């Protein structure tokens, strides 16, 4: 039996397990205590003092996010004048060293500081005084750090360390001089940052944001000499709706396609198609490694932050990475070769835009060995958030659009390709194809539930045509690190490992719509979005990559067979050692 105690929150009796924080207990009493630095499980540091409350008998105000209720009869007051005044002063002091340029800020109306200031009735000019100055970090192609908007909550530091075990950012100096930075004050582009964007996703303000490419895309669309193709990643369709008021976990694929078409793209394609193609290339690469003594375990290569992570932290495992380009890069490569020939437009006139739930994709497009046509495979990458901003700028009434279909041929993907958006999805897609290819007969059950779910590390064993295949799936680079350490130590005997950099996979990518801490702490966002993918897959007729008719066509008429010479030229890549 757990130890239950009775306490009172604002005179409302509540029964909670001993050790429950005031913050959680208050929710039971119908009270939302405001927070700023608190993020459940990763940043419970009681630093910002926005969540202070009065506890009867306590000497001073307490931080409710870390104050455990462990005494029967404790009385807590969450909104006395003293409490409200304290919170107000705290936020006014934070505002005193904040640039307050809300009107031009990408987080305007989605900013926790702005919201708190309003809720607490703050006077934003009350403590006008000296402000810290720090140059914007523009050193990476994927994100911008602007410390003039930073409130030192350290949520980004926690995400970098706890989710990703990357830890390239932290608090430097002290007191008024404190700022979030890197070791030796280097630019982010000069430290082993992997570009996952989880820091952006947890930032309460606009101090962290993606490098915006909307203007470049709009310019290409407006250029009559450009043929502009857009392709959407699997997870974008279950994220974009949130920017237009749909509940978390709503698949608005049809409206997204309609909106993109209204933006003026010449073709609206689906990167699910090249996810299917990845399964063919990666699946056959795996069989080749398995049968011919190649390097095992084979590690998936779809997630660009993961690739960069290996290059920095595990260069000895580079040969274990599949040589397949990611679906994004395969997509661009085919648009500018196969499809360019089909429509008779030269590659240099084609601009390929990919819509991604990811910030690291902006880094990936600039990697070496990613220009199959002689031109960069991908010209511009927009995150799901940027796509929403582009729709708004273009005046598109998203919610009222009809549902439309992707264009053929590069817009047709299977349910397997769709699953690339969630942790375990690449593995499941691969298993559906490998099982049928190896066994030579149709699968009776398509759901590989062992690799589903949001746990950080999953493993399973399958016997495929008499061969036992041991697989593992990890999401969140801190979990990936655990697996890699086992491999380096020779303590793991997996054959095939899927890694997605972001916890829960791309549905929770660093480019997806941002939710405030209250939502993050109380709703399992990644699970809801993943559910939307799985429930779409199960309703689809086409659920296996190798059965996609357009995949068959592209092999029959263009690539030959999986891992052919031509496929290698267009669809495979190389990696570089980076070190730390």
């Amino acid at each position: 039996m757990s130890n239950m105690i009775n306490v009172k929150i604002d005179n409302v009796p509540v029964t909670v397990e001993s050790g429950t924080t005031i913050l959680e207990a208050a929710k039971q009493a119908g009270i939302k205590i405001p927070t700023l630095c608190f993020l459940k499980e990763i940043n419970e540091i009681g630093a910002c003092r926005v969540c202070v409350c009065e506890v009867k008998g306590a000497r001073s105000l307490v931080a409710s996010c870390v104050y455990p209720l462990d005494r029967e009869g404790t009385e807590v007051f969450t909104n006395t004048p003293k409490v409200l005044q304290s919170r107000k002063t705290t936020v006014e002091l934070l505002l005193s060293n904040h640039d307050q340029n809300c009107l031009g800020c990408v987080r305007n109306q989605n900013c926790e500081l702005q919201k708190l200031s309003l809720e607490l009735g703050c006077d934003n000019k009350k403590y006008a005084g000296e402000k810290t100055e720090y140059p914007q970090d523009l050193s990476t192609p994927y994100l911008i750090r602007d410390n003039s908007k930073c409130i030192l909550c350290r949520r980004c530091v926690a995400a970098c360390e706890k989710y990703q075990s990357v830890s390239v950012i932290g608090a430097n100096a002290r007191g008024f001089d404190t700022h979030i930075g890197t070791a030796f004050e280097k630019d982010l582009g000069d430290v082993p940052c992997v570009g996952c964007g989880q820091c952006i996703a947890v930032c309460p303000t606009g101090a962290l944001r993606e490098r915006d490419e909307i203007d470049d895309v709009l310019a290409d669309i407006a250029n009559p000499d450009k043929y502009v193709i857009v392709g959407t990643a699997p997870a974008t369709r279950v994220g974009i709706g949130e920017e237009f008021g749909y509940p978390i976990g709503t698949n608005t694929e049809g409206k997204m396609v309609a909106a993109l078409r209204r933006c003026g793209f010449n073709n609206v394609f689906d990167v699910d198609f090249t996810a299917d193609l990845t399964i063919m290339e990666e699946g056959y690469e795996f069989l080749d490694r398995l049968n011919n003594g190649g390097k095992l375990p084979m590690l998936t290569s779809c997630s660009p932050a993961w690739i960069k992570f290996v290059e920095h932290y595990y260069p000895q495992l580079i040969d274990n990475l599949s040589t397949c380009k990611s679906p994004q890069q395969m997509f661009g490569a085919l648009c500018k070769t196969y499809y360019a020939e089909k429509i008779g437009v030269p590659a240099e006139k084609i601009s390929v835009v990919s819509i991604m739930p990811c910030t690291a994709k902006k880094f990936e497009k600039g990697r070496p060995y990613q220009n199959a046509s002689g031109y960069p495979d991908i010209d511009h990458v927009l995150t799901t958030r940027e796509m929403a901003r582009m729709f708004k700028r273009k005046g598109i009434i998203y919610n009222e659009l009809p549902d439309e279909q992707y264009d053929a041929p590069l817009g047709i993907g299977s349910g397997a390709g769709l699953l690339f958006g969630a942790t375990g999805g690449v593995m499941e897609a691969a298993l559906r194809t490998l099982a049928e290819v190896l066994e030579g007969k149709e699968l009776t059950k398509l759901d590989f539930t062992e690799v589903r779910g949001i746990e950080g590390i999953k493993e399973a064993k399958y016997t495929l045509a008499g061969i036992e295949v041991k697989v593992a799936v990890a999401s969140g680079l801190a979990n990936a690190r655990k697996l890699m350490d086992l491999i380096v130590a020779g303590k793991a005997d997996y054959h095939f490992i899927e890694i997605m950099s972001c916890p829960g996979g791309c549905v929770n990518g660093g480019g997806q719509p941002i939710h405030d801490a209250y939502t993050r702490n109380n709703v399992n966002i990644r699970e809801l979005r993943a559910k939307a993918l799985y429930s779409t897959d199960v309703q689809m007729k086409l659920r296996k990559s190798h059965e996609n008719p357009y995949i068959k066509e592209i092999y029959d008429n263009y690539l030959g067979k999986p891992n052919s010479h031509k496929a290698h030229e267009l669809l495979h890549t190389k990696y570089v050692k980076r070190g730390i």
Partner: protein
Amino acid sequence: MAKIKLTKVPFNGTPEQETLLMNKLETIKDLPGALMPAMQTAQEIYGYLPIEVQRIIADKLNLPIEKVFGVATFYSQFTLNPRGKYKISVCLGTACYVKGSGDILLAIQNKLGIGNDECTPDGKFSLHETRCVGCCGLAPVMTINDDVYGKLTTADIDGILAKY
């Protein structure tokens, strides 16, 4: 406050210093909270915490380098700058300050191109703001190692520095 400025003085640690540091790190690396004693030891050995030494500590204690740097820049007991061969201390105590030591400090900063607690790239001079040195009658005052200079004007600075 902008970014923290790092010293331009090249690292010139000796193998003996490194052995001393490594021996200490070996004895404490598995203890909880080993970082502070590791850094204190390193500073005793080197006189400051060069980048190279912070990297050694991070590697040995298996910590992210930013953790080490964050701690090094948080506590005033740690310094990232070596002390120069000649340590210039300019008194900013009340008497010296009203007699214009702020201008003296500025003149030296401009002349040497370094800020407070920094060291010239050749390792010759370091500059330190200090409080009362106990000879207010001579204000404004500065010391260079054991030499005391009083009743200073900014015009004296070039001549004094040229002696070293």
